[in-house]
């Protein structure tokens, strides 16, 4: 029997902003790289994001936010992930996140923050290299 493992990714947009151009381009690039991408649309609450990650058993969560609410929402998301035991999920983020906030966000456990202008293939490569190995 063949093992059919695929990398599963949740692309999530917390916050109320609607700038999904970046999120969708990333979703498409990851899909074209052979991953299974779950995109849940705009306006996702931290609870919805974490529950979705759990039910879909994803390996990776990509958070995209441009509303400026990351300082409120990211800590909530990371805390909920911890509570639900989803500590082995790779979390990355993108959007408009000022340079000076990056260290704080990384301390929360967000592995990488991709600022505006990041090449999509860099992001795809990062996911391949950092996705947690499962047995």
């Amino acid at each position, binding site marked *: *029997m*063949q*093992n*059919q*493992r*695929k990398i*599963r990714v949740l692309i999530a947009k917390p916050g109320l902003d609607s700038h999904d151009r970046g999120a969708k381009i990333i*979703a*498409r690039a*990851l*899909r*074209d*790289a*052979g*991953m*299974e*991408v*779950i*995109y*849940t*649309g705009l306006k*996702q*609450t931290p*609870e*919805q994001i974490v*529950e*979705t990650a*759990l*039910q*879909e*058993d994803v390996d990776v969560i990509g958070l995209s936010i441009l509303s400026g609410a990351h300082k409120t929402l990211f800590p909530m998301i990371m805390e909920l992930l911890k509570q*639900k*035991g989803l500590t082995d999920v790779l979390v990355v983020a993108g959007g408009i996140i000022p340079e000076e906030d990056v260290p704080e966000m990384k301390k929360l456990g967000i592995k990488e923050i991709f600022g505006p202008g990041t090449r999509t293939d860099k992001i795809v490569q990062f996911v391949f290299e950092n996705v947690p190995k*499962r*047995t």
Partner: protein
Amino acid sequence: MPKIQEIARGVLAGDRRSIARAITTIENNSPKAQELIASIFPHTGNAHIIGLTGPPGSGKSTLIDKIIREYRRKGKTVGVIAVDPTSPFTGGAFLGDRIRMQELSTDQGVFIRSMATRNYLGGIAKATKNAAKVLDAAGKDVVIVETVGAGQSEVEIIKVAQTIVVLFAPGLGDEIQAIKAGIMEIADIFVVNKADRANADKAVMDIQAMLQLNNKEKKWKPPVLKTAALTGEGVPQLIERIEEHRLFLEKKFERKRSREKAEAELVEAIKEKVASSIIEELKREGKLEEFLQKILEKKMDPASIAEKLLNRKFGKQV
């Protein structure tokens, strides 16, 4: 990753993380999947499995959202498996059904899982069936499977359901034609969604006309309903019909239908086991290519090869 028995115990206890992991095991077609199914199997058979299929964009996911809400109002728990195609070129998939049900994702009485077809031999139908078993064993009262009604493989997927609902939207005349091939015969309930649009009544009539030709002798006469999934109009009536169909199955055909189903499942399982063991063997011996070549060169037909291989394996005429 925890041991498979631990996952199985978790599933039976209704633990959401375990349910998710169990479905992953199944869709990865991992060797442990069978062990998992074996341990949960005795606890299955309680959920009512509903299949919902129809053309792309006809409103399946939106309707499921409303169906879930209705069942929740009645105090039932619901599991959903939403299947989307894997790209044959990249092997990737975009799973976008759950967006329409996303508000329900935090309801602990609801579990929604997206699955990609992954394009492996007979795989998705089996994986869907087993994923439904996981949700069933986890105590969900209702399990809904969504697929796009397009090709043969979708027909196979939807057959895991006990009640099959086929959805249309108005103004899709050609698509009714295209789809009826495999699905008209197996549908238990027809729904014309987007009833808020013009032409919904015409679509209902078209379907009814088609059914007249088809269903003279059937005991269960598939009803044709109208819904507006955006507002939820017509959904309570749909649920009533689904329940009626469930009772119908239980009362009249239960034994026969489940015996048939058991048989079908056994046949499936044997097919898969035998096929994969023979293929694996050929691969080990490095003979697979040789046989494929024979077919390509038209030196031997597939059926004769199969027979030869079977004889070799069991050492006698079958």
